[in-house]
Structures are given as C-alpha cells and as structure tokens.
C-alpha cells in the first residue's frame, strides 16, 4: 500500500511540474463552455435548459484531452517496464495513476464548474447535484479513459483511436449525470440517477484496474 501511495505522489508531482498538463483540460473546459452563450445567444431560459448537458459534454471532452499522457510517456521512456516488474501489482499501480490523473484533471473541473454554472444560468437548486455528479462521474471518466489509453498504447495515431473508443463508453455517465442535474432543477429527487452513477463508479473501480493492467501487459509484450 505504501508503494501505491508513493506512486500516486510521484505521478502527482510529475504532472504538477508539467504546468501545461494541468492547465490544458481546465482551460478547454472554461473556453468551450464560454462558447455556448456566444453560439446559442444569451437567453437565460434556453441556457438554463442547456447548462447540465453542456457542462457535462465539455467536461467529458476536457478529460479526453489529458488521457494520452496517462501511460504514453511511461511507455516511451521505459517506466512502464519497471512498473510492470515492480513488486506492486500492476492493477494497483493503474489505480494509483488513475487517482493522480483525476486529482490533476477531474478535481479542477469540479472546482470551477459552479462558476461556469452561474454563467449558464443553471437552476439554483442544481448546484449541489452538479457537484455530486462531477464527484462521482469524473473519476469514472478517468478510469474508463485509463482503460482506453492502455488498449490503444503503442498504436499509431492512438489519440484519435482513443477518442473513438472512449466516448461511447462515456455515454452512461453523461446520461445519469445530466438526468440527475435536470431532475434537481425541476425540483425532483436526483437520488436514483446519482445512485446509478455511484454504481458505475463502483463497477469501474473494481473492473478497470484489471482490464487496464491486462492491456498494459499486452502492450509491453
């Protein structure tokens, strides 16, 4: 467990030192969301209706931006060989890397999202649900993304392939998250939607490390 924590801190430190890694997804999230009122006009009711979907779609795309760096650099510089041979099981190493990835991509989105919500006239009753949905959903984005990144590792032009592979898998998260926010906005209980989102999270955290580790071993062969 100490080794997993050490790997988490190591990855966190690396990503924080690559400043652009941290800024790029966040800047994309903010800029893409800013485009929405410019594109559809500043009408508050329309924006309020679009807000949950737009926030979540831009969040999906923003996390996609940072995925290829999850394993690509480690693969190219030989670090992945060493991780695969380290006493720490590769499954736990994957989990530690995903956690570090989430802290540097998902967490900043979670923090900035309410500000963008105000800009899009998101219903006042939806903010708590928006945050809970992001808290449950963005780690799953990182997990599914890690699986996709591991599978496409070593493929030429893997970036485009990665997006095509991962986006369809993001669909359930998008649906559950936006329905939860929508329900909260209409004064209904977002609970069932959030529970479904939580179950996707629970499934992901169990399955993804095994799937991604298997794909990584395959890439190293």
């Amino acid at each position, binding site marked *: 467990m100490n080794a997993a924590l*050490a790997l988490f801190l*190591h990855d966190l*430190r690396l990503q924080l030192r690559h400043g652009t890694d941290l800024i790029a997804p966040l800047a994309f999230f903010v800029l893409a969301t800013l485009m929405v009122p410019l594109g559809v006009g500043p009408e508050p009711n329309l924006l309020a209706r679009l807000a949950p979907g737009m926030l979540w779609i831009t969040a999906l795309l923003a996390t996609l931006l940072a995925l290829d760096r999850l394993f690509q650099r480690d693969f190219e*510089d030989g670090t992945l*060989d*060493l991780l695969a*041979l380290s006493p720490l099981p590769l499954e736990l190493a994957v989990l530690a890397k995903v956690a570090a990835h989430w802290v540097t991509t998902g967490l900043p989105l979670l923090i900035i999202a309410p500000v963008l919500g105000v800009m899009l006239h998101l219903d006042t009753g939806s903010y708590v649900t928006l945050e809970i949905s992001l808290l449950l959903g963005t780690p799953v984005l990182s997990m599914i993304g890690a699986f996709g990144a591991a599978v496409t590792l070593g493929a030429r032009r893997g970036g485009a392939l990665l997006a095509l592979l991962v986006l369809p898998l993001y669909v359930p998260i998008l649906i559950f998250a936006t329905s939860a926010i929508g329900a909260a906005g209409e004064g209904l209980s977002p609970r069932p939607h959030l529970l479904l989102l939580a179950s996707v999270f629970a499934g992901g955290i169990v399955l993804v490390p095994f799937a991604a580790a298997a794909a990584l071993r395959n890439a190293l*062969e």
Partner: protein
Amino acid sequence: MKAGFAGYRLFCRRSERMVFAGLDFAVGSGGDLLLTGPNGSGKSSLLRLMAGLIRPYSGRLEHDGMRLTDDPAHHREIVAYLGHQDAVKPMLTVGESTRFWAGMRGRRDKAEAAMAAMGLTELADLPGRFLSSGQRRRAALARVIAGGAPIWLLDEPTVGLDVKSIAALEAALAAHRAGGGTVIAATHGPIALPGAGGLNLAEFAPDDVTGEEAA
C-alpha cells in the same frame, strides 16, 4: 540467499519471426552470465523474457526449481531489469527518481548509497532533463543497485558510460555477486565480469526464417 535461475528449451517468437530456439541456460547464486551474439540474435528478447515482460513461445523458466508462472509476484521481487531506456523523467531530479524507485521496493534508505556507488551524489539535485546520456545511464544503474533484487538483468549496461563509470559499475557488480547476487548481462562493451559464464545466442538461431524447429 540462494538464487538458482534456469531456463529450459526456450523458444522466442516476435511478430511471426522466431528469434531463438531451444535455448537452455542456468545461473547459480553468485554466478553470472554474459549474453553475446550479433545484433538481432535475441539478447534483449531473452532478457525481457527472463524478466517476465514477454512470455516464451514455448519452454519454461524456473527459479530454484519453481516455475516462474506459478508465482509471478515472487519473481517481481527478485529481479531487477535495466532495459535500453533509462526511464529518467525530465522533470524529476536524480535523487527524487532514485528514492522513488528504491521506495517502490521498500528500500528508500538505500538510495543515497546507490547514487554514491555510481558517482551521482553531486548530481542528486539535478533534474533529468539536464543529464547527459551517460549520466542517465548511471541513474538507471543506481536504481537497479538501490532496488536490491538478487537477480540483475542488464541490457547493454555500459552504453554511454565513461571509463571511470565502467569501473564503478564493475565494482558494483562484483559487490552484488559477492553478496550472493546474480548478474545476467548482454553487452558489446568492454566490461570485466571475472569468471562469467558465456551464452552465445548465435548458437540458438532457428534453422530457417519460420523457425518451426531447431536444435
């Protein structure tokens, strides 16, 4: 510390091409093995296979009579692998990197001694992006030394090293063997491994390109 490591009738196939066929090897504790052979004869493949990164097409690897596939976790504890790449991160200092990898094996306290052994003490606070290729190689070797695994698998450990660093490496290898450790190295470079067993991979080249059967 007993570390008898052996392989029997190993075949290695890389993307439809048989690299070597019917290869046997055995190294006792405190022993070492120098892999030789022309380019493309499979030295690197054999080392990756010994490390467990790739699976043999057929044949088996054993450690103290136990098949590696039966206990891969134990195998990861006992081998240290140095590949072509140095895995030195541009944004991390030599010290941070060495301490991290030593820590992954629960030996964070051994990092300073390992850096000293490879003459890296003065470079400990230098980020990886400022290192020369020889210095990166030394950082990678310091990681192997700090890890303390009994079996070292070294792929061209001397690449980029100057005379002084090669001497430091030879001293480290001698100390490792004196402590009962095993060294298996592939090299074209000048390195002294007194009393090393040799294995010439050219002898295990498959008969034809498809390499269905050899030896």
